[in-house]
């Protein structure tokens, strides 16, 4: 239901009083409507669905998530299962 991909905002302008941007998807560029993320800036990343930017992509959060994934294997190697489980319990789940 939700085919949306992350892209980088290259350029912002207005058309028919509508905020639009040229967004780069890894070498593919497309015009995207920015009305739902009005304060996004050039150079930032956004999730795009059917020609609309729907959310700013939180780069810090993305980096943290990837770092967590990388740590997963490391802790197992160093400390074995029990320690890894404890580390995960303390560092992972954050109830909303």
């Amino acid at each position, binding site marked *: *239901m*939700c*085919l*949306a*991909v*992350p*892209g*980088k905002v290259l350029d912002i302008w207005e058309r*028919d009083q*509508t905020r639009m941007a040229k967004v780069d*998807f*890894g070498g593919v560029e497309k015009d995207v*409507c920015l*009305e*739902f*993320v*009005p304060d996004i800036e050039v150079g930032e*990343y956004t*999730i795009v*669905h*059917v*020609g*609309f930017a*729907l*959310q700013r*992509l*939180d*780069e810090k*959060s*993305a980096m943290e*998530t*990837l770092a967590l*994934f*990388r740590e*997963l*294997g490391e802790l*197992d190697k160093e400390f074995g*299962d029990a320690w890894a489980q404890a580390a*995960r319990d303390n560092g*992972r*789940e*954050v*109830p*909303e």
Partner: protein
Amino acid sequence: MKYLDEFNDPELAKRLLDDIHATVKQPWAIMEVCGGQTHSIIRHGIDQLIPDQVEMIHGPGCPVCVTPLELIDKALEIASRPEVIFCSFGDMLRVPGSGRDLFRVKSEGGDIRVVYSPLDALKLARENPDREVVFFGIGFETTAPPNAMAVFQAKRLGVPNFSMLVSHVRVPPAIDAIMQSPACRVQAFLAAGHVCSVMGTQEYPPLVERYSVPIVVTGFEPLDILEGIRHTVHQLERGESYLDNAYARAVPPEGNLAARKLLSEVFTVTDRGWRGIGVIPDSGWRLSETYRDFDAEYRFQVGDIHTDESAVCRSGEVLQGLIKPHECAAFGTQCTPRNPLGATMVSSEGACAAYYLYRRLNTPSTSQREVASIG
């Protein structure tokens, strides 16, 4: 593509899988609601790589599959009119109505255009003032803001020959309906990440409370899906249930306030029939009174549609996760992607199509964990 490629890393996938395998001690049934997640799971073989005890039940998160038959028939009727240019996302073109689909209508002379964005349909309306341009506005909450914007712009810019045939559906009422079904086996949910990018996460804690099920907001790339499953099995094994966000990079708790504001102006909550399931109260959106003029159902007065669902099709039970596609007698014989009896066989992420296309080959799950190499 940055922020996509990193979440497709097979090495990191292996670590997530190792953790899942180390954590799971008993059988669990997890439903992924979103069709995009179903597609990703099947396409990458994730269902084969997770422990056998973890069963992924594919939920009704495919708007193509659940759009009510009456609405498909209305779409076909409108699209057949000579003055109409009927615009739709590609997904809807092969969905069978009572005996026809949009491709057949096209072959009979209907002007049917596939568009990437609802704004493309609006553009067509402005370029063709002597034609009626109708856009088939389907989807979950992710697609609702773009569709709402097209109608909003049509009113603001004064494009009288544009209208929308709306059939939006909402996830939280669907989760309610599924959990209330007596035969329900679902013990946890992967919530649809991009739906939550729009709507935020606050609709889910009441469901967690009511049914004591873990709900984990999950993305779409292989690592996102594995992370969602990983968070879920940790909760299940510890006997806990709370709302968790495993897609924080694209889902702030409040979602997208600008989008939600527009939705409340352009759409109104309504009861909606889900094909194969039935009417779920308050589970859909229709155009609000303010935008009545742009509602294709009113403009075209499509009444007296006699719908004719296949008596044999069991997609409703598949959509609720009550049966697996191959447990339906028609699966693979009378009902194939070539000749679908129901919508779950048409959509590329419909469970029946996914099973038919991708899973006809029975392979043991454990041997697939090594990446094959060709000498």
